[in-house]
């Protein structure tokens, strides 16, 4: 039975979902999700999965979709592209999910994409930023996360907020599609704004000792280093940058936040900047504060790591998107959900979610245009730039 009051209290601006609730009850509608729950980028994957779990709970409390509860089936891709493919195949073939959410890293998402074509199952991409995910001609892909180019373009608009201004930049990126893509797009966007481009260093996703990279970067005369990697390596890099006396402004890209540095802050005088897509410290500044506050309150009620909210919203928004597509489709079937995804137009934690077409004509993927904000972290405290 639909509980309208609960739904409204939840802050979900989706009255249409409520109208169709309790229409039938054929058992739960399954949503498949694959995330890196273990391995090099496990922190981020767990946060995204947690966000998805609370979205499912919130929706189910409001009566589910078409009167049926949602069931999230979560598979660990172990921060490994081969495992990502195996996880997706297991979700589609054994669990019979009609729609997927995944897979955090661009490398994992790209490895799954041929399977979407093969099994004709749509996937909502919640995090991955590599350009070719939506330009390679896969009509089963719908991305709510920004591409690196979008993120770089949004950052360029905020350049005036940095004092002293950014004049020359270097890069330290994880050596995969995510890192290389960010380096390329930020070089292009900021180079176009008259900023000089310096060194570009890389690291493997498993690397823990970054002293060689940092010593090399220290030799550059750049004033700012752009860091693109997961939460764990962000934390390691920021700590080791203090050791190596890097002496440069550090900006992280990709929407991850090194939350461990809130409880274990860097020594005074060391600040870092983080490009985020949701700043949980300031839910009132989100495009739709009521939705952001509901999400934040649900998360905090679970007692989860507060800073995980910065990434957890991806899972939350992805589930809202999928639920709305299922409602619009009127049935839990892959092709119908794919067609319905083009008609999704909802409010999420990050802002509006609706898809525009990208890629070759006739085989377009869906791409959302998310919002971006910059957080300054110093001595365990955050402020919005």
């Amino acid at each position, binding site marked *: 039975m639909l509980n309208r009051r609960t739904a409204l209290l939840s802050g979900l601006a989706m009255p249409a979902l409520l109208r169709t609730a309790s229409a039938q009850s054929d058992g739960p509608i399954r949503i498949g999700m694959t995330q*890196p*729950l*273990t*391995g*090099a980028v*496990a*922190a981020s*994957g*767990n946060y995204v999965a947690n966000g998805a779990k609370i979205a499912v709970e919130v929706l189910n409390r409001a009566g589910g979709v078409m009167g049926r509860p949602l069931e999230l089936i979560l598979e*660990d891709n172990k*921060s490994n592209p081969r495992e990502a493919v195996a996880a997706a195949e297991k979700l589609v073939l054994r669990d019979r999910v009609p729609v997927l959410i995944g897979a955090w890293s661009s490398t994992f998402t790209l490895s799954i994409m041929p399977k979407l074509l093969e099994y004709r199952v749509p996937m909502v991409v919640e995090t991955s930023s590599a350009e070719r995910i939506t330009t390679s001609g896969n009509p089963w892909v719908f991305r709510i996360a920004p591409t690196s180019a979008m993120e770089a373009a949004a950052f360029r608009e905020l350049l005036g907020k940095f004092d002293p201004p950014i004049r020359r930049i270097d890069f330290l990126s994880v*050596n995969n599609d995510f890192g290389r893509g960010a380096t390329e797009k930020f070089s292009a966007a900021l180079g176009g704004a008259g900023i000089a481009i310096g060194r570009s*260093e*890389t*690291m*493997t996703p*498993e*690397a*823990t*000792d970054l*002293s*060689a*990279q940092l*010593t*090399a970067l*220290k*030799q550059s005369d750049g004033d700012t280093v752009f860091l693109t990697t997961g*939460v*764990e390596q962000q*934390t*390691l890099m920021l*700590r080791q940058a*203090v*050791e*190596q*006396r890097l002496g440069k402004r550090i900006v992280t890209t990709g929407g991850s936040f090194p939350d*461990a540095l809130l*409880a*274990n802050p*860097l*020594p005074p005088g060391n600040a870092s900047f983080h490009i985020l897509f949701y700043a949980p410290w300031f839910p009132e500044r989100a495009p739709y504060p009521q939705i952001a506050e509901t999400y934040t309150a649900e998360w905090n009620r679970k007692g989860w790591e507060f800073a995980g909210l910065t990434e957890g919203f991806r899972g939350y928004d992805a589930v809202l998107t999928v639920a709305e597509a299922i409602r619009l489709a009127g049935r839990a079937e892959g092709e119908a959900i794919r067609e319905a995804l083009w008609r999704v137009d909802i409010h999420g934690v990050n802002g509006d979610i609706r898809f525009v077409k990208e890629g070759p004509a006739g085989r377009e993927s869906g791409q959302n245009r998310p919002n971006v904000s910059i957080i300054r972290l110093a001595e365990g405290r955050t402020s919005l730039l």
Partner: protein
Amino acid sequence: MDQALQHLVNGTVLGGTYALLGIGLTLIFGVMRVVNFTHGELYAFGAYMVYALVSLLGINFYLSLLLAALLGAALGAAIELLLLRPLRRADIDSVMLVMIGAALVLQNAEMWGWGGVAKLVPSPFAGTPLVVGPISVMPLRIFVLLVACALLLGFWLLLDRTRAGTAMRATFQDAEAAALMGVRVGWVNTATFAIGSGLAAAAGALLGPVFMVSPTMGDLVGLKAFAIVILGGLGNLPGAAIGGFALGYIEEFGGGYVSTEYRDAFGFLLIILVLAIRPQGLVAPRERVG
């Protein structure tokens, strides 16, 4: 020049812990002819133990390091007694399969017990670096290097100056002859596996607070430990120490001056070169076969 000095310091610090890892692995191979695939997981075990003792139980940091190494040794002894001793007469393939299985069980137990998210271990050392001219290094890293060197020295004294060490070296050279001379080879095997495991756990306990602690942290480290012992010569103890420092320097200077993209590859490139030129390893004397 400043950059080279910084790389030298970084390589030395890294090499010290690599040497610790290599010694433990090569000791077990030398004495028992067992390829210990659980070595990386024992390293992770040591790191998790120090996290649990310091962060969850609030035990003193230095005492926690000691306890983590001892718990690692106890786990090693248990592996030897429960898994390896029943396989003493088994062929090397069976032993290798069992050890691979044990490594998988250990890693998955860590994932199950601790979750996949990496943990930070607090240490009593200052978060600001010590600076000498152009060189900077964290006090914690200096501590790690000093402890690693002390452990290496202590281990050498154990092998060279004690009856237990003599028994180990005798078993190392010829297990049957040692048994005929009254050496209790079964006990030596258990002690050897425990000490090798303890060294791996000590390396993990020392490096956990430097980096972060995660269930898969042993994967790359296990691979590097094998690289170190191959560099130094399988079963060669001084070779493992030299191989550890060699790997630390090649990674640091290769990453700094050639390309950080291939930093981890430089060590393996060096192995290919060493195997092509000196198949017995950097230090081990050439062996006659047949």
